[in-house]
């Protein structure tokens, strides 16, 4: 287990280094912060001066080297706009993001497990069809559209919820719902499929023969068996929620990492882009390792390492 973990951390670290290298050059392909930072009428001299002050006049490889030297010590440089360490900017955005992703994923899972199980039990019959069509329709709604319509309906028309913000509990409802749109369809389908397999398995049928009720059967036996694929898809979705939070951030003014990345990209705040991607990368790695750990917990037969390829 420890050897596996070490190996896992090592390969993940390689990926992470790769990511920040790619992001370093990708970000610099998008121009320079000088234009945006300086007034419209800035002269070339002012732009040059700005670049000199921020080390952007050096050859790209020198900049890259400086970046690497800093990154090794977890120093990604300062945000050009906020003048504080970029890593702080990125880290400050993580708690809201993680909370939102956690709540949204948890709720999606609960809904998916209930809906997927019902669909599996009544498969090919009306409840199954209704659940499939409903959850897939939900997942087919463009998230920004849902977010804006949600505000108009629930906040402006019905006055049930605040439009935006994140300091009150009710303000979290619309952002959470928005982030939940995409995963709910997939998760329900995965639960349904896994449950159908699990319900067909021999020992579950035995249990059924012994007179276990369907609900008990589903809850006690099938679900446990179906949990592997569910966990793995849920893990994948957790990583994908960062992208969803860009939309949520921009509509609801939700101060998550998505908002930070969007702002940093639009403002060419290279240090923040790099730090944010690093932080997200670490998050994704941790989620993946957690998924493997859950795998091992749920099913000791799964030899970690031989399991899910990453």
């Amino acid at each position, binding site marked *: 287990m420890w050897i596996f973990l070490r190996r896992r951390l090592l390969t993940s670290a390689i990926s992470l280094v790769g990511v920040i290298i790619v992001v370093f050059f990708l970000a610099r392909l998008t121009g320079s912060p000088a234009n945006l930072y300086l007034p419209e009428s800035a002269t070339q001299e002012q732009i040059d001066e700005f670049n000199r002050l921020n080390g952007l006049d050096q050859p790209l490889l020198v900049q890259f080297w400086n970046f690497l030297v800093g990154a090794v010590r977890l120093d990604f440089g300062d945000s050009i706009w906020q003048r504080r360490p970029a890593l702080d900017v990125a880290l400050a955005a993580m708690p809201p993001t993680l909370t939102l992703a956690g709540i949204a994923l948890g709720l999606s899972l609960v809904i998916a497990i209930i809906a997927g199980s019902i669909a599996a039990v009544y498969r090919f019959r009306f409840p199954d069809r209704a659940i499939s069509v409903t959850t897939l329709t939900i997942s*087919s709604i*463009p998230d*920004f559209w849902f977010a804006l319509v949600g505000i108009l309906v629930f906040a402006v028309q019905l006055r049930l919820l605040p439009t935006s913000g994140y300091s009150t509990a009710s303000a979290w409802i619309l952002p959470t719902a928005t982030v939940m749109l995409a995963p709910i369809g997939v998760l329900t389908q995965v639960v349904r499929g896994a449950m159908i397999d699990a319900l067909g398995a021999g020992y579950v049928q035995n249990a059924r023969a012994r007179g276990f009720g369907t609900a008990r059967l589903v809850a006690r036996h099938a679900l446990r068996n179906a949990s592997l694929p569910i966990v793995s898809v849920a893990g994948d979705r957790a990583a994908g929620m960062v992208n969803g939070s860009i939309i949520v951030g921009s509509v609801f003014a939700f101060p998550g990492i998505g908002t930070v990345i969007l702002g940093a990209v639009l403002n060419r705040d290279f240090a923040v882009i790099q730090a944010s991607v690093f932080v997200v990368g670490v998050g994704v790695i941790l989620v993946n390792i957690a998924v493997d750990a859950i795998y091992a917990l749920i099913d000791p037969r799964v030899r970690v390492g031989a399991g899910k390829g990453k």
Partner: protein
Amino acid sequence: MAIDSKGARAVLLPDATVSRTGARLTLHRLLHSPSALISSGWLTLLVLVAVILPPLVETAANRQDLSLRLLPPFSLDNGPMFILGADGLGRPELLQLIVGTRTSLLVAASAVAIAAVIGFAIGLISGYFGGWVDEVLMRIADIMHTIPSLLLALAVLYVLQPSIANLIIVLAITRIPVYLRVARAQALELRERVFVESSRAVGAGDWRILRTDLAPMVLPTIRTVAMLEVASVLLAAAGLSFLGIGLQRPDVDWGMMVADGRPYLATAWWVTVFPGLVIVLTALAANLLSNWLRAAEDPSQAARFIRRPRMRKAAR
């Protein structure tokens, strides 16, 4: 007991009626699933619309008439092309949708196809060969997965210019890892199968095994995932439009129509609702079809469609 080596001659199993070819079988199954039938009908209709109509209506679709700005729908006073109302510049919503259909389908289909082909090929190779090839390819996939698609989109659209082709590139690159993972996981499992060993025993080389043994087994899954991805790509393209880094006029796709109509959400619902509805319906159709394909491919669920007299369990 008489042992006759030819004893098996007469006992081909009852469903070995091989007259029904794959395509006909699929069609037959399709006719028995209303949701799949309606979904494929809708998608076919869209494809037909996308292929035939845009050249005919493009000029009219892009003609602005500010006197018809935000014309409400369901009125024939200004001609049938304004049946779905007009957008903020007085362009007929219906014709915009038709032109957008072509772009949206082109973008979604191309991005999905490119991503699927590349992800499929790399995933197969990665999973089959394993070892350092796999390590390297998977690390690259991880990198692609972690880079924010927004940054990638902005970089590509900044260096190149915004165009349909570049939008396709961006979307394709960001979706490759999906197929790569699926293909790799299957290849990893398939390469241990006895039929692969059997192929090796008759002398097949690695590439041949990849091509004839592994690829046909992975392809159905890729196809299923690809249908599912059509929906994701449509939504991703719309998201880019919303963030202002999607397509540019005069090109138009559904996502752009929704994004453009957002100032009028409260005052002129039709500007966003119609394209939004088309996105939802199309994504839903693709999703349902993908589900159905998966079920049709899965032997444990296939019974549903081919009504075998009995099911056999693999003897193991």
